[in-house]
């Protein structure tokens, strides 16, 4: 089981967004407008083997989320190849993505489980554990709109944590919820790590990254500036931030 990315690149078209019929007619005769491409990721290559935990750090807009979406098969790469040999990949790009406020906790749980491609038969065995871990056992038949944001975040995390993935993709998810929940979820992630689950983890919190990740990628403007030891990746990133800050200070003085 492994995940391999070979020279993966992703571009977005800038003006494709508000294509009404009128605009597309204009674009039909004016090909140039469509060609305003913007490369979000350039030549990304790396490999994650069983049990490896990869951190991804970088500024906002450096391409971290796009990279995760490519691995999660939400986007398709424009060039390069992604081979995913993990049996069960689970991506949580946002806690509570796919939740409907008007459905109950139980209904949302069933639906979210199915969205992860997992069977309802398996859910039956884990149902109470999930509700228990999320601490919502008493509210399982209450519509989600009456949940606090912490409760629905806990439910979302529990679903992921109990789906026993081989590869877990997490985007900043630990930044929500209170300290207690964060501690609980980090512990659960550690349990998964002991089982040999591979992880790809995006975060701005270096302590979390250091705690979880064996290797890290530092992304800058869509390119891999550094790939290797986590401490070194963070050092490179912090060095870059410091450089930028010093330059700003110098600019101000002159």
């Amino acid at each position, binding site marked *: 089981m492994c995940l391999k990315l070979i020279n993966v690149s992703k571009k977005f078209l800038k003006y494709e967004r508000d294509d009404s019929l009128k605009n597309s007619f204009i674009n039909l005769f004016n090909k140039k407008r469509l060609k305003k491409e913007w490369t979000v990721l350039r030549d990304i290559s790396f490999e994650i083997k069983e049990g490896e935990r990869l951190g991804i750090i970088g500024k906002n807009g450096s391409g971290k989320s796009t990279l995760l*979406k490519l691995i999660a098969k939400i986007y398709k790469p424009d060039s390069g190849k992604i081979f995913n040999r993990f049996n069960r990949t689970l991506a949580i*790009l946002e806690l509570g*993505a796919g939740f409907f406020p008007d459905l109950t906790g139980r209904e949302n749980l069933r639906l979210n*489980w*199915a*969205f992860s491609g997992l069977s309802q038969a398996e859910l039956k065995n884990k149902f109470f554990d999930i509700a228990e871990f999320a601490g919502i056992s008493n509210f399982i038949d209450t519509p989600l709109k009456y949940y606090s944001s912490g409760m629905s975040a806990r439910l979302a995390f529990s679903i992921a944590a109990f789906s026993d993935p081989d590869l877990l993709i997490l985007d900043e998810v630990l930044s929500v919820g209170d300290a207690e929940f964060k501690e609980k979820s980090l512990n659960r992630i550690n349990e998964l790590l002991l089982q040999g689950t591979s992880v790809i983890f995006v975060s701005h919190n270096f302590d979390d990254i250091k705690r979880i990740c064996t290797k890290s990628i530092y992304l800058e403007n869509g390119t891999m500036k550094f790939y290797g030891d986590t401490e070194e990746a963070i050092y490179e990133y912090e060095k870059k931030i410091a450089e930028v800050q010093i330059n700003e200070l110098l600019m101000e003085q002159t």
Partner: protein
Amino acid sequence: MKHLELLIELYRALLKLRHSGSFFGFLWTLLNPTVYILIYWFVFSYVLQVGSANYYIFLITGFLGWNFTFGSLNLNSEAINQSKYLITKIAFPHELIVISNTLILLTDMIIAYAAFFILVLILSPSFAGNFIYFPLILIPQIFFTLGISFIASALSVYFKDIPKLVAIFGNIMFFISPILYPIERIPSNFSFVVNANLFAYILNLYHQAIYKGDAFNIVSYSFVFLSSSIIFLSGLWVFNKYKAKFAELA
């Protein structure tokens, strides 16, 4: 297999969400067509006096057929853009959104047909046996409906005007298909409007079987079945061609 489970869950969720919070809830499934049918029946039978004997059977057959296909088309023309929050965060076959929406409208149709059947059983029991052909004709109609729904939902991601155009298209189809009046009423110099309208052929099948009680016409059924299958496959093809970009554009 796992896609089937997701489809079932999605269908259940959307079905529940559809009427959640409204006072009449699930009753709207019947209330909505009943109100429209009563108005058309009043106008055409009493005001214009064009309805023939048992006009209500003709009217309801056509109306329910239209309601399923164009209700589904309307719903699906906005479905992908409205599911943006799912599509950009979760990887799953987007076809399931279209299929579950169509299944919801299909559920409406089947419930409405059950009520229609009871009505006929009370008012014109000699027609009740004709309903045996309903499931048979429903099959190509489902193919046709899925096909055009796939096309509209995929294209609407690229052209945001599609839902508005689809709504107008649905209204035009309502008046040029055999719903309010039999298709023979259209003057022969306009017959191309009828000949090019596959949906009219589908409604004609219903009318022949349920309203006229004709012997089942295997030739026109086969024609409709084949054409609808082609529409279905074309719809799937178009959807597949464009779905890779849904998450970026929706």
